[in-house]
């Protein structure tokens, strides 16, 4: 879910830096998502992996898998490590914490997380 308050949206749209998150870009309908599975969306030309967890939480990270260089994290299996949601890269199986982007197998590696929210049935990702 978005961590950006609604009232601030106009400000955010005019001044992308004001909240650390800029313009919101709609990427798909919420119904396009399967619980506990991801999709890849292009946001400002960058592939982003968007996940809908079975509890309803929406999370987004880079789609690019830093280990293989392929754009595939959206196609990984969603799971949890001690309750924290993760996705496992389908290529070499490293797991990434969906809330922080940190890689569990190699904590020196992490991927970027993206603010994401639902508005009127549409999934929106914040463009930095």
């Amino acid at each position, binding site marked *: 879910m978005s961590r950006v308050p609604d009232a601030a949206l106009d400000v955010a749209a005019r001044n992308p830096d004001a909240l650390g998150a800029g313009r919101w870009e709609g990427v798909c309908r919420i119904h396009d998502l399967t619980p506990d599975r991801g999709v890849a969306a292009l946001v400002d030309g960058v592939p982003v992996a968007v996940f809908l967890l079975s509890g309803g939480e929406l999370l987004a990270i880079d789609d690019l898998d830093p280990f293989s260089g392929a754009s*595939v994290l959206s196609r990984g299996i969603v*799971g949890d490590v001690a309750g924290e949601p993760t996705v496992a890269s389908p290529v070499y199986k490293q797991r990434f914490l969906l809330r922080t982007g940190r890689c569990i197998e190699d904590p020196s590696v992490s991927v970027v997380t993206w603010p994401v929210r639902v508005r009127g049935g549409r999934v929106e990702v914040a463009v930095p």
Partner: protein
Amino acid sequence: MAPTIVVVGHGMVGHRFLEEAVARGLHETHRIVVLAEERRAAYDRVHLSSFFDGASTEDLALSPDEWFLDHGIELALGEPATELLVHERTIVTAAGRRIPYDACVLASGSSAFVPPIDGHDAAGCFVYRTLDDLEAIRAWASGASAGVVVGGGLLGLEAANAVRLLGLRTSVVEMAPRLMAVQLDDGGGRALRGHVDALGIEVHTGVAVAGVATTPDGRVAGLRLGGGEDAAERTLPAELVVFAAGIRPRDQLARVADLPVGERGGVVIDDRCATAAPGVYAIGEVACHSGRVYGLVAPGQVMAEVVADQIAGGGLTFAGADLSTRLKLLGVEVASVGNPHAEGHEIVVSDPLVGTWKRAVLDDEHRLVGAVLVGDAAPFGHLVSALRTGTAVTDALAMLSPPPVGGAAGPMADEASVCSCHNVCAGTIRGAVDDGHEEVPAVKACTKAGTGCGSCVPILQELIDEQLAASGRAVVRHLCPHFAMSRAELFDVVSVTGIRTFRELVERHGTGRGCEICKPAVASMFASLASGYILDGEQASLQDTNDHFLANLQRDGTYSVIPRIPGGEITPEKLIVIGEVARDFDLYTKITGGQRIDLLGARVDDLPAIWARLVAAGFESGHAYGKALRTVKSCVGTVWCRYGVQDSVQLAVDLELRYRGLRSPHKLKMAVSGCARECAEAQGKDVGVIATERGWNLYVGGNGGMRPAHAQLLAEDLDTETLVRSIDRYLMWYIRTADRLERTATWQRKLPGGIDQVRRVVMDDALGIGADLEADMARHVESYECEWTATLNDAERLSRFRSIVNDPEGAPLPTRVEIRGQRVPE
């Protein structure tokens, strides 16, 4: 200055001494210098032969280089000791260094004995002792077509197998009337010979060696035989000769220093492993204790511990070792217990058809005095236990054929040897389990058991399980952190409760939201049990990406497409379609190792269009992406081949159509050969069928891959109906009980009772589950549908095949370069 310990020789035993010394803190109180003749630090000589199976020198190393630095041990590689000056307590080295010692440990091992025959030093003659020897053999073998090994003992047979693996025609020449004359009796020798013959190694026993025949330029041309049982002289042509006819202790330093040596060599030591010279000890194959030199590693390891303890002021002594050994030679289990040549009351269990020979000898009080096991060493632990405790044996037959689990032979005594490489007994393993080491790796680490030849690992597992059960702790091999049970147990839960959603399963029987381990495993169980479309509803989120897109992920994020080509048989029309599809979608094509065609480099977005074309031409999913049946390889059989005795293609096609889509713990591969020439390589498959004049021979549990395993013969001359029924049962039983990602070979190896148990359950229906297993399979066969056809017929399912949710064009193809006329990832 700190007192100095000089170790002469850095072999297996010398290294063990260092470890024991470090364990006692001697490296902190002493300067430790190791003089090593070889230019490599100590390595695992027992597993030397694995070098020819692909093990690297690093794999064989006993400790990383840092270990010596970390413990301040000075390791002088390539600097042998040349003189032992006992009065000056000084060692002189080949580099001219003089090192005064407080304690000197001779651990120089032994060297291969080369008989002083004509031509013994010709180019092409080798011994089999060091990594350098093996490298030299390998280099020479590349220009040779045949090799002869002199010596039919343990070493000779290992050397013969190595020569065979190098692709040479191989023979073994042994003076004694049988193989492994020291450890085996006649029956055991005969059984072992059957196995060696089957490998295509030519064996000549009871033959004396007259000399090495050479070419004019001094290279080996053959081995001249003569005398013995067949008195006529003849020559075995060969370009390579390996001498493995015994070992001689390397006791030269001690001899020159006038220390007593044994009748057949070896520095004489007492129970403290001390020699006659003050401060000088000898351990391992260079030592002679009570008139005996041990050619095995285990007694040497004990000596190493004794000396470390003595130097540290302890009172440990060496009381001699029992020569009971258990080995795996050329894939054959061989063991001898106590005195294998003892006379007394004999009990023999032998099956010449499978090549087992098990013989125990009891004295008049019915105490075990010796035993020989070939082809099945399972009774080893109980026999050693009976030997050491000296109790009267009541049921010798049961002891030689212990039932698979628990049963009549009873639990092993605490003092029974489990690991003969490291002298670890059952009690020690039980103790480790009680101390909280509940899994094999942990028990290995703390007891060293299982870290030698590895043949005792299955017993370790059994003992751990037994001990956990005995102490009331559950024996669970958890699938993953989300399910505290094994795959087999979870399979039972799924099958009994009828639960068919992951969410319900994890809520009621697990914790959390699952993970990349349990989700696909559970999806596979649902599929094995219900055979519905694997991507419907919640199942979609369980599958890994390959199953999700019904294609195999490649390293650049694109996918491969492998249509099913049953039995490897394909019409020209279908071949043309494959060619056209590949051309139109710019796919790289390659013939796979499984007799079909792989189209690589497809974008997710193109998969439906590609498959639409393939399905229209009559192709189906090949399930190359699934843990499922892959291919049933075939040879041409009676239809074309002049040797074929059955229609192998027809059977392969029938089997492939029957089991296609069957989900299992790991992938399944099968093959059918039309005659014993075995062109389809059926004995390397999970299920292999070989035609006979009267029907089919069924082999199970074969595996290529990382640890190749030959399939084992389950039944002979079956008619087609019985064959199919047996395969149904075998596969379903495996699916029910195997661990996740466990191929049939591993499952079968770990199964108590192994292939015999498989035979009892599958062929004799000993568990009475045959009908259930067949019914499970019938359900699968009936409900099979091609996953790709089902996908193409359903708009909702098709909508998943989008690489980018907000761009109908999809992700562009990653950069490609051209090689050999096709386009591939950069």
